[in-house]
């Protein structure tokens, strides 16, 4: 007699585990299928985010930023240190411990909420059944009233740069480098490429980033992209745009990278090469041919605005469906779907999802950017406040960047917020909340922000939208 569940979730990443916990909290009999195992064969929860994505990368970014500060930024405060060095294995070990704590935490949460963990690779069969293939090859089929597919995504591999153990790495390999490479190559100047490049640049690597597109960060507001390019360049990241990699050659413990740019064919030699050209939805062996779930033309599972697939009773969330590949988007979709299955009305606001790049300074944004709104013909007003004018930022010795607010000229509604700054990732939440409540720029102007804080920049940017910022000279309205 096969097990039967109200909800079976495939995947225990930030989409899957959140959906499973929520479904269980709503009183539904829930199972979660996860295939990830550690080197001892024990099932590990948390998916890409916890294990080889969001969390470990932030751990390394923070460790290396502290090293950078000790190395280069203590002196101005009057702090004298001796030679500062970095024990890379210790840094990686701390990262591993954090990941272990978190993944263990999810296991605990599953137990606490009564979610049944099914270890193995999940596959959606016809008739709302899920086949779980265990490590030893045996299979178990369970019945589900509802299935939530949260299989996530995997790195895109490019033929010119096939992965080679220890030398040509994807994000997972990049997080486990055991010694600072003298020369590091990064293919792809996207979020992952820039973050990984930053980590090793801070520890002294000579970093070259090869980006095939002509434009840097095309999805970001142009002013943000320009500022970021300038600041990252100053930090020692050599970002080459319009550089398309055509081949790689492993030579002993180095990699020769061939690429073409505007001036012709080029090549560089690096000690390690990270491939970070993007991620694609993971659907291999996931859907039986007759299960009724369809993919769209880009390989994502096709879903409607509430994550329903073409098969009634089967939902899909997170990186395996359309939309920004962000953990918080996956989690919110997970909650929305669990609520819908339980019979509640649930919606998600896809227009207010923040995006962040965790370099230093950080880049964060929510809503539309200036070039998008101009292309749509919306009459906008823009307010910008540089951290260089913020007392708190000066006290912290962290004055790069700005807060930029964009609002509708006619209705005053806040349409987008774009921040470059040390605390951008935290500040952006204020803009997200404001936009969720349909706030106008005037609402932000009338709200009291504590002084002295970096958040005041949001307040000043709001004032600047109407040309009456107090702490910075206002541009004449064009």
């Amino acid at each position, binding site marked *: 007699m096969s097990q039967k569940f109200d909800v079976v979730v495939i995947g225990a990443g930030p989409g899957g585990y959140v959906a499973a916990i929520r479904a269980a909290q709503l009183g539904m009999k829930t199972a979660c299928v996860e295939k990830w195992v550690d080197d001892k064969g024990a099932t590990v929860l948390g998916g890409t985010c916890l294990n080889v994505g969001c969390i470990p990368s932030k751990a390394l970014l923070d460790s290396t930023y502290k090293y950078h500060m000790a190395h280069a930024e203590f002196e101005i405060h009057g702090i004298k240190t001796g030679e500062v060095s970095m024990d890379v294995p210790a840094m990686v070990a701390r990262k591993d411990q954090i990941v272990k704590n978190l993944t263990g935490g999810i296991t605990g949460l599953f137990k606490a909420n009564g979610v049944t963990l099914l270890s193995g690779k999940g596959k959606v069969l016809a008739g709302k059944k899920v086949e779980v293939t265990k490590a030893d090859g045996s299979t178990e089929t369970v019945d589900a009233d509802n299935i939530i597919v949260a299989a996530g995504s995997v790195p895109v591999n490019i033929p010119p740069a096939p992965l080679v153990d220890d030398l040509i790495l994807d994000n997972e390999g990049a997080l486990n480098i055991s010694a600072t490479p003298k020369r590091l190559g990064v293919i792809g100047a996207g979020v992952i490429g820039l973050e990984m490049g930053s980590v090793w640049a801070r520890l002294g690597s000579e970093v070259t980033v090869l980006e095939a597109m002509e434009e840097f960060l095309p999805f970001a507001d142009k002013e943000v992209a320009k500022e970021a390019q300038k600041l990252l360049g100053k930090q020692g990241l050599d970002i080459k745009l319009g550089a398309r990699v055509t081949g790689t050659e492993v030579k002993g413990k180095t990699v020769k990278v061939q690429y073409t740019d505007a001036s012709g064919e080029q090549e560089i030699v690096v000690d390690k090469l990270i491939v970070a050209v993007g991620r694609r939805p993971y659907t291999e062996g996931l859907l039986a041919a007759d299960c009724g779930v369809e993919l769209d033309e880009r390989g994502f599972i096709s879903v409607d605005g509430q994550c329903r697939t073409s098969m009634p009773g089967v939902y899909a969330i997170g990186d395996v469906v359309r939309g920004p590949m962000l953990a918080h988007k996956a989690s919110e979709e997970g909650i929305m779907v669990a609520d819908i299955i339980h019979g509640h009305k649930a919606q998600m606001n896809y227009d207010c999802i923040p995006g962040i790049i965790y370099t230093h300074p950080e880049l964060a944004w929510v809503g539309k950017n200036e070039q998008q709104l101009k292309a749509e013909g919306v009459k906008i007003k823009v307010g910008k406040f540089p951290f260089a004018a913020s007392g708190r930022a000066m006290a912290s010795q962290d004055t790069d960047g700005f807060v930029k607010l964009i609002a509708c000229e006619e209705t005053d509604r806040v349409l987008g917020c774009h921040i470059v700054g040390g605390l951008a990732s935290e500040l952006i939440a204020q803009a997200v909340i404001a936009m969720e409540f349909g706030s*106008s720029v005037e*609402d932000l102007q009338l709200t009291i922000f504590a002084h002295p804080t970096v958040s005041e920049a949001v307040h000043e940017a709001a004032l600047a939208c109407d040309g009456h910022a107090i702490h910075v000279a206002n541009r004449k309205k064009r």
Partner: protein
Amino acid sequence: MSIEIKAPTFPESVADGTVATWHKQPGEAVARDELIVDIETDKVVLEVVAPADGVIQSIVKGEGDTVLSDEVIAIFVEGAAGSAPSADEAPAAASVDADGDAIAGPAARKLLEENNLDAAQVPGSGKGGRITKEDVVNFLKNKPAAAPAAAAATPAPKAAQVAVSVAPGERVEKRVPMTRLRATIAKRLVEAQQSAAMLTTYNEVNMKPVMELRKQYKDLFEKTHNGTRLGFMSFFVKAATEALKRFPAVNASIDGNDIVYHGYQDIGVAVSTERGLMVPVLRDTDAMSLADIEANIADLGARGRDGKLGIADMQGGTFTITNGGVFGSLMSTPILNPPQTAILGMHKIQERPMAVNGQVVILPMMYLAVSYDHRMIDGKDAVQFLVTIKDLLEDPARMLLDV
């Protein structure tokens, strides 16, 4: 529905009582049988409970006041008080809902205060019915267009109501500055009159053909179109759309020194809600069937009453139809809704004796008025535009045959 809350019948020996404590304030949500006030007498403290779910609208006898047996102490309004923007809230309570939380953001609150509005009047399109700045701005913008159409009614803003009590024999004056709202309405009206060369052409339409058509088909219509009722507005909107197509100048607007001829018809339809008159816009009426128009109007009306109309719903519009007839107006001159260059006023359907082929026949007649901007539209076009509408309404087959 308002209910009078009375002091209970006092025992025989008790002459009067005192209001001891009000446990609920105006605007606060109250459940049926919940304690609302204590009344102290010589002998005993009497409790008064709520007769139904709802809100106290106003307190007539405050704490410490003397009350007699069965005297009215408060006015209570029945209804689900929980829904934030509902009209059941006490007018005096301004922008505070049942929990005492502000239901308008800071900019919206500022505008409400400046214009002497209370939150209950303004439909909120924000999260959970909250009133955003846009909602108040929009409300103020649409008030002027309403004023001329509601000529028969006199909607003075609640806050501005001042009772001028004059003792017999005295000749007093009371000077009250115009509220911001009234001043804004006044300014906009004057602007419309001064910039446009506005005048009005009248005509009358025999509504009998439309009424007969409606009588004959309304049940089938309702059944075929999933419960959408066949009203009069769809006929007017369709006729107006046709006429606008034939007279593009009437469908145009002025932008600086340019005349913008719109290749589509977006018709604003005045809908009356508890919050006041609003003019949401029906987009692309040419592409709509009568059922589509009726369904859309019903939807916009419902949304208007629920406070769910957003600023986008009321912007744009190439033409407006206003209906003073619902208030009893027989004839009126509607004011233009800038930047539109024409507006159609509908009025009350009144049975009148008419001369038809030498005989006197009683017909249900409606006066129609089209006010227009002579800078854009010549008299001939305006008159013929209105005549076209009249002809199409008096013989709906013409709309089908496109003649």
